[in-house]
C-alpha cells in the first residue's frame, strides 16, 4: 500500500497532466492539486487546497458540470459499491481560470475514489484555439466554395474525391446519395456517363493524377449539348502537390454567343466584300462615263471647229464688201458671236483634253522669264490699248519644271485676265519667289478685285465672277484650264484679293529646277 501510494504520488508529481482531488459533497473543496497546476495556472497549492473548485470554473459551465458530475458519479457510486472498483466516466471539457485571469480549456475525467473525486485533466487550450481557427477557416472556405459560379471538385492523387461544392453537384446533376455516401466509383461513372468523350477525359484525369504539379485547362462537351470549361490546378500542402482542384464552368451560353458573333462577323464581311465589289463597279462605271464625257466633248469640239472655219474666214470679207452701214453693223455682230463661239469651243476642247487621264504633260526645264515675256508679247495689243504698265520682277535665272506649251497657255490666260479687269493706265506686277522646292509666281493687278465668295468659285468651270457681264471676251473656262494645267504639273493655284475694287493677285506654284552644276 505504501509502495503503491508512493508510486502514484510520483506519477502525480511528474506528469504534465493536471491531477487533483476534491471532496464529494454539495460544497466540495480541493484536497490535493498536483504541481502541474502551478505550472499552468500559477496558483500555489495552498491557494487552491480547501477552496471550492467552482470558484475557478467558468460561471456558464458551473450548472452543466454540477449536473454531469452528480448524474454520473451517483451511478458510478452505485456501481462501485457493487464492484468495488474505480471507474471513470465520460470525458468532458471545461474552462478554468488562471491566476492571471486567463481561461484555459481542460479535458477532464473524474473518478470516485472512496469519498473523494479524482480529476485527471489535460490542457487542451491550444488545440481548442486551433479548432476554433480551423472552424472559422472551414466556414469561410465553405462559404466561398458555395458562392462561386464554378463547380469545384478536389481529389487526391489517387483520384479519390476529397471535397466538392454545391455548384459542382448542381452542374453535374449529381444525386444526393452519391455525395452523402461518398461513393467514389459511382460519382466517376456518373460524370463520365454525361460527356461525349469519356475515355479522353479519363485519360486526362489519370495523367493529371500521375503529374500532380501540372496546371491544365480544356473543354468538355456534354451529350446534352452543354459545354464546360475545365481548369485544374494542384493543391499544395506544405509545398507538396497533395491534391488536385478541378474547376468546372458552364460556358454553353458563352460559346453560343461566340458562335453567333462569329456568324455575324462572317456575314458582315461578306456584305462588306459585296459592297466593295459594288463600289468598285460603280467607280469604274463613273470613270467610264467621265471618259465618255471627255471623249464626247472632244469629238463635239472637233466637229464644231470645222464649220466655224469658213464663218471666221469669210465674214470679214463680206463685211468689207457690203456697201451699206446697216449690213456692216449686222455682220459685225455676227463676227463677234462667231469669235466668241470659236473661243468657247477651243477652250472647252482644251479643258476636256486636260481632264483626260491619257493626256500626258512634259516636264522640261523651262526658263520662267522667257515664257512670261512671250505671253506679254501675245497680249501686247491690249496692253498698249489700255496703257498698262508691266512691272516684271522675275529673275532671269529662275527655272521651273513644266510643259512649255501649257505654261504659255497658263500665262496667257492669267495675263489676259489681269488686263481684261484692269482700268486704263494701271499697273500689273509680276513676281516669282524661289522657296527651294517650288517657285511661286504671282500676277497682281489693280482691277475690280474679288469677294471671298467669288474667290472660292473662280476656278469652277463656266463660273464668271460678274454674272451680269456676258462679255464675249470671257469664256468662263480660262481659270479652270489654268487650274488643270497647274494641277497636272504638281503645283497649286489660288487667288487673293482684299475685296471688290482693290485688285486681285493670282498665285501659282511649279516645281523648281535646281541647277547643281
Amino acid at each position, binding site marked *: 500500500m505504501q509502495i503503491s501510494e508512493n508510486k502514484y504520488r510520483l506519477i502525480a508529481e511528474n506528469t504534465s497532466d493536471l491531477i487533483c482531488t476534491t471532496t464529494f459533497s454539495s460544497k466540495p473543496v480541493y484536497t490535493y492539486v498536483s504541481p502541474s497546476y502551478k505550472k499552468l495556472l500559477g496558483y500555489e497549492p495552498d491557494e487552491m487546497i480547501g477552496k471550492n473548485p467552482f470558484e475557478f470554473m467558468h460561471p456558464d459551465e458551473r450548472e452543466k458540470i454540477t449536473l454531469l458530475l452528480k448524474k454520473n458519479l451517483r451511478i458510478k457510486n452505485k456501481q462501485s459499491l457493487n464492484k468495488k472498483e474505480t471507474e471513470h466516466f465520460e470525458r468532458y471539457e471545461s474552462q478554468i481560470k488562471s491566476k492571471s485571469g486567463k481561461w484555459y480549456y481542460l479535458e477532464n475525467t473524474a473518478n470516485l475514489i472512496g469519498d473523494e473525486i479524482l480529476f485527471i485533466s489535460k490542457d487542451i487550450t491550444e488545440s481548442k484555439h486551433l479548432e476554433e481557427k480551423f472552424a472559422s477557416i472551414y466556414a469561410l472556405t465553405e462559404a466561398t466554395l458555395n458562392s462561386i459560379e464554378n463547380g469545384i471538385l478536389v481529389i487526391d492523387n489517387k483520384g479519390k474525391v476529397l471535397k466538392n461544392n454545391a455548384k459542382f453537384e448542381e452542374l453535374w446533376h449529381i444525386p444526393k446519395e452519391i455525395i452523402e455516401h461518398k461513393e467514389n466509383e459511382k460519382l466517376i461513372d456518373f460524370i463520365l456517363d454525361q460527356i461525349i468523350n469519356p475515355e479522353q477525359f479519363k485519360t486526362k484525369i489519370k495523367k493529371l493524377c500521375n503529374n500532380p504539379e501540372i496546371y491544365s485547362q480544356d473543354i468538355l462537351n456534354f451529350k446534352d449539348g452543354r459545354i464546360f470549361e475545365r481548369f485544374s490546378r494542384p493543391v499544395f500542402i506544405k509545398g507538396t502537390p497533395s491534391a488536385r482542384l478541378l474547376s468546372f464552368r458552364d460556358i454553353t451560353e458563352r460559346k453560343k454567343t461566340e458562335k453567333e458573333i462569329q456568324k455575324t462577323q462572317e456575314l458582315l464581311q461578306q456584305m462588306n466584300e459585296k459592297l466593295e465589289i459594288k463600289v468598285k463597279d460603280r467607280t469604274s462605271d463613273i470613270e467610264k462615263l467621265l471618259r465618255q464625257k471627255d471623249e464626247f466633248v472632244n469629238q463635239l469640239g472637233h466637229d464644231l471647229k*470645222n464649220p466655224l472655219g469658213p*464663218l471666221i474666214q469669210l465674214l470679214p470679207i463680206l463685211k468689207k464688201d457690203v456697201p451699206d452701214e446697216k449690213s456692216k453693223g449686222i455682220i459685225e455682230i455676227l463676227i463677234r458671236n462667231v469669235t466668241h463661239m470659236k473661243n468657247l469651243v477651243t477652250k472647252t476642247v482644251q479643258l476636256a483634253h486636260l481632264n483626260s487621264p491619257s493626256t500626258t504633260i512634259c516636264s522640261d526645264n523651262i526658263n520662267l522669264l522667257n515664257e512670261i515675256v512671250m505671253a506679254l508679247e501675245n497680249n501686247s495689243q491690249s496692253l498698249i490699248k489700255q496703257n498698262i504698265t508691266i512691272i516684271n520682277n522675275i529673275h532671269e535665272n529662275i527655272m521651273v519644271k513644266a510643259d512649255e506649251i501649257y505654261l504659255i497657255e497658263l500665262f496667257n490666260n492669267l495675263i489676259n485676265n489681269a488686263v481684261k479687269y484692269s482700268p486704263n493706265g494701271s499697273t500689273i506686277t509680276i513676281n516669282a519667289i524661289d522657296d527651294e522646292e517650288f517657285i511661286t509666281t504671282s500676277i497682281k493687278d489693280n482691277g475690280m478685285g474679288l469677294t471671298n465668295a467669288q474667290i472660292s468659285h473662280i476656278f469652277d468651270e463656266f463660273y464668271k465672277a460678274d454674272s451680269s457681264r456676258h462679255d464675249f471676251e470671257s469664256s468662263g473656262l480660262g481659270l479652270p484650264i489654268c487650274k488643270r494645267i497647274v494641277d497636272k504639273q504638281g503645283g497649286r493655284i489660288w487667288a487673293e484679293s482684299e475685296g471688290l475694287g482693290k485688285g486681285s493677285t493670282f498665285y501659282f506654284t511649279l516645281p523648281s529646277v535646281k541647277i547643281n552644276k
Partner: protein
Amino acid sequence: MKDTSKPKRIMMVDDKKDQCSSISIALNDKYGDDYIFISADSGKKCLLLLKESEELPDIIILDLMMPEMSGWEVFDKIRDNPDWRQIPIIFLTARTDRIAETAGEFFGNDFLQKPIGIEDLIKRIDKVLNKKK
C-alpha cells in the same frame, strides 16, 4: 519679205470642201495674186495632183483627220518620194492633239489648230518658207 517675182503655190488637203473654198476666197481677197491656191479634197487627190502637176506647190497644208487616207499616210507618201520630200508641210488639226504639235515640230514644219484665221495661216506659211530659204 514678200517675194514679188513669183506667186507662192499653196496646196491645201482637206476633205471639208467648205474649208478649202473659204480659205481660197479669203486668201484671194486679202493677198490677191500673191498666192496660188490649189485644193485637194482627199489624200488620193493630193498625191494625184502632185504626180500630174508640172509645178510642185511651195507648201502643203495637210489636214490630219480625213476618211480613207489619213493625213499621216499622205505625209508618209510625200516624205517617201524623193521629188516631194523637200516640200514643207503644215499640219492642220481640229483636235487639241499633242502628237500633231510634236509631229509638226519634228517631221513637218509647223502645225495649225482649226479653225484657222487667215492672217495666222499666212504668218505661218511665210515663217516656214523663210526658214527654208
